[in-house]
C-alpha cells in the first residue's frame, strides 16, 4: 500500500520558513494570504499500515516539535485514478 505522511511544525511554534513565504507573497501581488506554515511530505510504500504510527513517532517526526498526519491511499490502481484521488483529498 502507498501512504503519505504530512509533517508540520506544531501550532504555536514559530515557523520562520512560513513567515518568509508569507512576507514574500504581497510583493508578488498575492494579497489576503496568512498563517502560512511550511512542513514536509513523505511518500512511502509499506506492506501494512500497522507500523506507520510508530515509524512517525520514532523517525519521520519529532513529536516534541512536529505534528504528523498519515494518509493511506484508498484507490491504489490504476495510476491515473490514484492521482485524481490524491488531488481530491488535497482540496
Amino acid at each position, binding site marked *: 500500500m502507498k501512504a503519505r505522511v504530512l509533517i508540520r*511544525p506544531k501550532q504555536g511554534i*514559530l515557523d*520562520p*520558513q512560513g513567515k518568509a513565504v508569507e512576507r514574500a507573497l504581497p510583493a508578488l501581488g498575492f494579497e489576503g494570504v496568512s498563517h502560512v506554515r511550511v512542513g514536509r511530505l513523505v511518500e512511502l510504500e509499506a506492506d501494512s499500515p500497522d507500523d506507520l504510527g510508530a515509524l512517525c513517532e520514532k*523517525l*519521520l517526526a*519529532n513529536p*516534541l*516539535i512536529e505534528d504528523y498526519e498519515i494518509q493511506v491511499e484508498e484507490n491504489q490502481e490504476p495510476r491515473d485514478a490514484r492521482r485524481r484521488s490524491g488531488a481530491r483529498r488535497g482540496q
Partner: protein
Amino acid sequence: MMFGVIQFPGSCDDRDALAGADRAGDARMLWHEDTDLSGIDAVVVPGGFSYGDYLRAGAIARFSPVMGAVAEFAADGGPVLGICNGFQVLCEAGLLPGALLPNAGLRFVCRQVEVEVERTDTAFTGGCDQGARLSIPVKHMSGRYFAPDEMLGALEANGQVVFRYADGHNPNGSARGIAGVCSEGRNVVGLMPHPEHAVDPMTGSDDGVSLFASVAATPEPAAARG
C-alpha cells in the same frame, strides 16, 4: 583521560574537537560504526552535518551503531559532550531534553558570542567559574533551542540549563536564551556554541578549553564505572 570523538559521515568539526580535547588529555577518533567504547573516558559528539541533516538535523545519526554504545556509556554515568550537530543528535536520541529548531531569522549565523556559565556542577563545567562569560563562536542554521514551557520550567528548577547567551547575544531566538543544557545526571552536556573552535588565543579566544579541561580534571576512569 582518553576522549573519544565520534566521526559520522558528514561530521566536519571532528578534527577540531580532537585538537580541543587533546589540549586537556589524550584523544582518538571513533567511527560511527564502532560499538566498543572500552578505554574511552569521555565521548565528544562533534558538529557538522551528520548524514547530510536529512529529515531533521541529528534524526538519522541517532540510529547509527555507535549511538547505542553512547547511550549505555551515558547511562553508566560516562561524560558525553554534544557540540552543535552533536547537541542536535543527543536531543534526537533522548539523551538531552528539548529540540533545536531553524534559527528564528532563517539565516545561517556564524559569529563570536558571549555565553554565560550558569551551572558548574556538570561533567564539563566543573572547572569554570559560576557566571563566567566565555567567548565562543556559533555557526549553525538550526540552533534555536526549544522545549515546551512546562519543560523549560522543570529544566530551570532542576538546574539543567548550563549555558545561556549573554544579554544581546542570542543569535537564533533560543527559548529563554538557552545555549546549552545537561541531563538529569549532569554527565551529558550539549551546547550550540563551539568550544573546540576557541582553544587558541591566535583565533581570538581559548575560553573553550575549560570545557575539556573540566572533565579531564575530574576523571572517572572507564574501569571505575564497571
